[in-house]
């Protein structure tokens, strides 16, 4: 791994100001994806800003909905009573992702920020417009059975690998962000983006912004399911997945929200179906 400078911070303000001072820096929390990318030479940040000490580890609930801190580990969110009782779709999606060890490390914010698992993105000897803009795309004519079905561009057919994000998209979540200009909220469906001509950008987060929490609005959904199809029964990325949340009353579907995973550069909402 290429060496880097290291900064440990204890507040969101310090994290954001440190990021502003050092352009080629990245935040690190669980590190499950970032450390792997650094070992492979896909990413080589000049500086890591360790945000693990930030007070973003609470899960709270009120009449408006549930707020999950950015540093809540995936396993903690999946086992939390508020999540399993009120938003079981999220718990199912979380438990469908990665392994028990990785879910103990991976955080809510980090899960949202994880990069694609396209093998051409990971292999630094291959062209990849996402890793190195204008270098070409190895996947387009290569091994691409797990690549995008919807929303791809001529530059990139990579997909977003998260399970958690598919459930959050179906549940109309909002991402809370802190930046140099203050706080803001981004609707989950607008957080990730399609590749277009700039596949190096996974999402619409501005440089220097930090995810602080995710908010799920309270809803009327009383039936939900996360179905994941993969090459083995556990611990594999999705060939395709679907998060379905339904409001069923007297055997009639009153409302529905459906999102698909593993099919596009972002969680893919089926708005017409809904």
């Amino acid at each position, binding site marked *: 791994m290429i060496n880097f400078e290291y900064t440990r911070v204890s507040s969101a303000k310090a994290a954001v100001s440190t990021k502003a001072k050092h352009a080629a820096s990245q935040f690190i929390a669980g*590190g499950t994806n970032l450390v792997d990318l650094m070992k492979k030479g896909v990413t080589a940040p000049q500086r890591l800003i360790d945000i693990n000490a930030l007070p973003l580890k609470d899960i709270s609930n009120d009449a408006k909905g549930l707020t999950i801190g950015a540093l809540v580990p995936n396993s903690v969110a999946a086992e939390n009573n508020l999540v399993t009782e009120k938003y079981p779709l999220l718990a199912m999606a979380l438990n469908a992702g990665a*392994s*028990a060890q990785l879910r103990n490390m991976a955080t809510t914010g980090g899960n949202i920020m994880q990069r694609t698992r396209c093998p051409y993105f990971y292999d630094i000897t291959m062209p990849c417009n996402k890793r190195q803009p204008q270098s070409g795309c190895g996947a387009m004519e290569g091994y691409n059975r797990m690549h995008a079905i919807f929303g791809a561009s001529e530059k990139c057919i990579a997909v977003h690998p998260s399970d958690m994000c598919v459930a959050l998209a179906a549940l109309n979540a909002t991402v809370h962000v802190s930046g140099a200009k203050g706080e803001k909220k981004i609707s989950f469906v607008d957080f990730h983006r399609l590749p277009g001509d700039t596949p190096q950008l996974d999402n619409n987060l501005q440089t220097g912004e930090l995810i602080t929490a995710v908010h799920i609005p309270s809803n009327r959904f009383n039936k939900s399911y996360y179905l994941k199809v993969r090459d083995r029964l556990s611990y594999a990325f999705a060939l395709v997945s679907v998060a379905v949340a339904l409001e069923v009353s007297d055997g009639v579907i009153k409302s529905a929200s459906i999102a698909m995973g593993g099919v596009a550069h972002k969680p893919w909402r089926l708005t017409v179906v809904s």
Partner: protein
Amino acid sequence: MDNNCKNEGRRDFLKKSTAIAVLTAATPILLKAAENDETIAAYFEKVPLELEINGQVHKLSVEPRVTLLDLLREQLGLTGTKKGCDHGQCGCCTVHVDGKRINSCLSLAVTNHGKKITTIEGLAKGEELHPMQQAFMKHDGFQCGYCTPGQIMSAIGCIREGHADTAENVREYMSGNICRCGAYPNIVDAIMEVKKGGKPV
């Protein structure tokens, strides 16, 4: 355990050579306290790091790029924790951080400052093996043994988390540990027995 293990010489060499490396390497601790309560290490500077490993407090000095796995094996000679894929896919490197199982190969040592680490070496009480170690031996939960430390650490986590009620649950929640010898049925039996035995893990 067989005291005439053929690997003993190789392990001793590794332990001795790492101890010598630690003594001879210059270990400049260049720590700057800056504004915003930052701890900063520049390129190739080492960061002071305090970890409690198997009940013993260690005051260490590491480069930020060192993973917890490499720190345990290379700097502390705790070679029970294995390096398999080194990319979080096989589970060989599983250790407990504050009681929770993680992949030590994907965790930078510096991000664990102040935490309690338990490795396979920390399970036995003197000559008495941990119940999970005993169960793996009884049920022959291994063949080559390379994945075994990770399997055992993960198995303890699986029970602690409450995911060992059924064989199906054990298989799902142990999916982060790969055994290329295919000892899975015996591993599941070992875990189920420890769970049913009810001893604290």
